[in-house]
């Protein structure tokens, strides 16, 4: 048998063919209020390609069985697909080992897991947890809960008017008391991409462990956890074209190994008696109960899809689309873009003078333009900019410049209605 060798020269990824890509997403092809749908709410959740829908369906139609249990064929198929998805997630994040990939319900559960398992074991009274002002509620509240339980203090690194973390302040807030730092890789409300590699190094220098919330990053650009050197990285499947209810916690093996279980139950044990229980190995120690098998398999298909397009091709296309949208929106009188970081993903938060975001949302819906309005689960960001809410268009690689034109037209419509 001959060893298949990986090609040394990488074939450059072709640029993204948006018409072909759109054909992969059934939900994009519909009318809303008699207009073609322009789905610009991708930071809330992304649409799913056929391959993901088919993978979930195939599992339920053909392979449905519990994993890691039976010796029968269906269970073996399900287990192979489930563990195959773990390997896909490992490669996707460039983790060192698949033992470092834990399947959870989503980024929120991943953060809560780290807070309650790592946090309770390693953080104490008087210790500090440092986050940034742009965090999603999911990277604020678990740390508030933990701080309250342990008598620790939550500190917040401020952001500037552009929506970038003020690194000098961040550095000053790091101290020997800082036990853990929680940073969004990409802000869901502002689009800002944080320099997490540098922030991680600074945190490590201070002796702190770093959790990166990658829910909004993974759908937009390639992530390499070894290059970032972060200790934990969390993902949500549904924000990266996979199913809801499934996510990934990456953790460095040595840290996960030392952490106590988060939940008890089946699957996470090796041996149980009433006197003593021996916990299972990684990553199963953190996967109590029957997992969301269909979700994991669907997530694996989503990763295949993203990898097939190429994360760099996705990032290139979205960068151009963001540029186009920024130019289009900047020229509209009365429109205020909130979040103008130099390094930014394709998210545009804005307010329109004299029109409340919820009225914008309703008027846009009439034009077939789906956006999110509200506080985007980042109330402190809204407070920072002195607005109760914003309208947010978040673009994906399947969006087109025509859809951005529809967005601009809808803004003009809103202005006209409100005179």
């Amino acid at each position, binding site marked *: 048998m001959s060893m298949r060798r990986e090609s040394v020269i990488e074939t450059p990824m072709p640029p993204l063919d948006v018409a072909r890509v759109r054909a992969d997403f059934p939900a994009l092809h519909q009318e809303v209020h008699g207009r073609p749908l322009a789905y610009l709410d991708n930071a809330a959740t992304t649409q799913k390609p056929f391959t993901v829908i088919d993978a979930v369906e195939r599992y339920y139609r053909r392979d449905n069985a519990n994993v890691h249990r039976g010796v029968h064929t269906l269970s073996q198929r399900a287990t192979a697909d489930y563990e195959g998805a773990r390997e896909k997630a490992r490669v996707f994040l460039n983790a060192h080992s698949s033992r470092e990939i834990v399947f959870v319900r989503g980024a929120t559960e991943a953060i809560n897991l780290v807070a309650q398992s790592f946090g309770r074991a390693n953080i104490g009274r008087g210790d500090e947890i440092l986050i940034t002002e742009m965090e999603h509620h999911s990277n604020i509240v678990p740390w508030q809960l933990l701080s309250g339980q342990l008598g620790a203090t939550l500190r917040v690194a401020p952001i500037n008017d552009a929506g970038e973390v003020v690194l000098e302040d961040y550095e000053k807030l790091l101290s020997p008391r800082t036990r853990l730092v929680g940073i969004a890789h990409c802000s869901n409300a502002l689009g800002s991409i944080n320099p997490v590699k540098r922030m991680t190094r600074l945190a490590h220098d201070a002796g702190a462990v770093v959790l990166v919330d990658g829910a909004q990053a993974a759908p937009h650009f390639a992530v390499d956890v070894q290059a970032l050197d972060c200790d934990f990285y969390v993902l949500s499947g549904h924000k990266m074209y996979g199913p809801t209810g499934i996510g990934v916690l990456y953790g460095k093996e040595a840290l996960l190994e030392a952490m106590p279980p988060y939940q008890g139950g089946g699957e996470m044990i090796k041996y149980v008696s009433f006197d003593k229980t021996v916990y299972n190995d990684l990553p199963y120690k953190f996967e109590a109960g029957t997992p969301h098998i269909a979700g994991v398999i669907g997530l694996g298909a989503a990763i295949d899809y993203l990898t097939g397009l190429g994360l760099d091709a996705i990032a290139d296309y979205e960068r151009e689309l963001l540029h186009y949208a920024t130019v289009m929106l900047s020229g509209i009188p009365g429109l205020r873009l909130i979040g103008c970081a130099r390094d930014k993903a394709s998210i545009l938060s804005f307010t329109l003078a*004299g*029109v*409340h*975001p*919820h*009225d914008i949302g*309703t*008027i846009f819906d*009439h034009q077939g333009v789906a956006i999110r309005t*509200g*506080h985007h689960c980042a109330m402190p960001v*809204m407070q920072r900019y002195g607005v*109760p*809410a914003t309208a947010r268009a978040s673009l994906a690689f399947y969006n087109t410049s025509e859809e951005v034109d529809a967005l601009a037209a809808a803004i003009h*419509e809103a202005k006209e*209605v*409100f*005179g």
Partner: protein
Amino acid sequence: MSDLRQLYEEVILDHNRNPRNFHKKPGGTNRHAHGFNPLCGDEFTINLEVEDGVIKDAGFEGAGCAISTASASLMTEALIGKTEAQARALFEDMHALLTTNVDASEVGKLRVLAGVREYPARVKCATLAWHTMQAALRNEDKTVSTE
């Protein structure tokens, strides 16, 4: 466009631009309540001056979308001079107007808000001030929400 105009009637746009009894807390305010829809961010305090069972004056403070602001503005106008019983009856009529197809004749000018029922996601905006008013009449401390 035409059906959007049924929601954003000229009267609603006018009451949004120039809300009546806004930033107003009557000197004799003896009933008030706080309404807040956390998902939306719409937030109002309704202030009422009630004497001998009659609403002598009404005002509101806070911020919200055009629908919730206009609804609160129109409501305060309608309330002044009404008895508590009439105010409660008006609440019922408005509730029916906004959530069902029952068109109570008593609502008068408030009928401009009827377009909201075609927009289920926005009904909570239109009803916030009304539920808050009802809580004010009962002098309830708890924040009201219609989400």
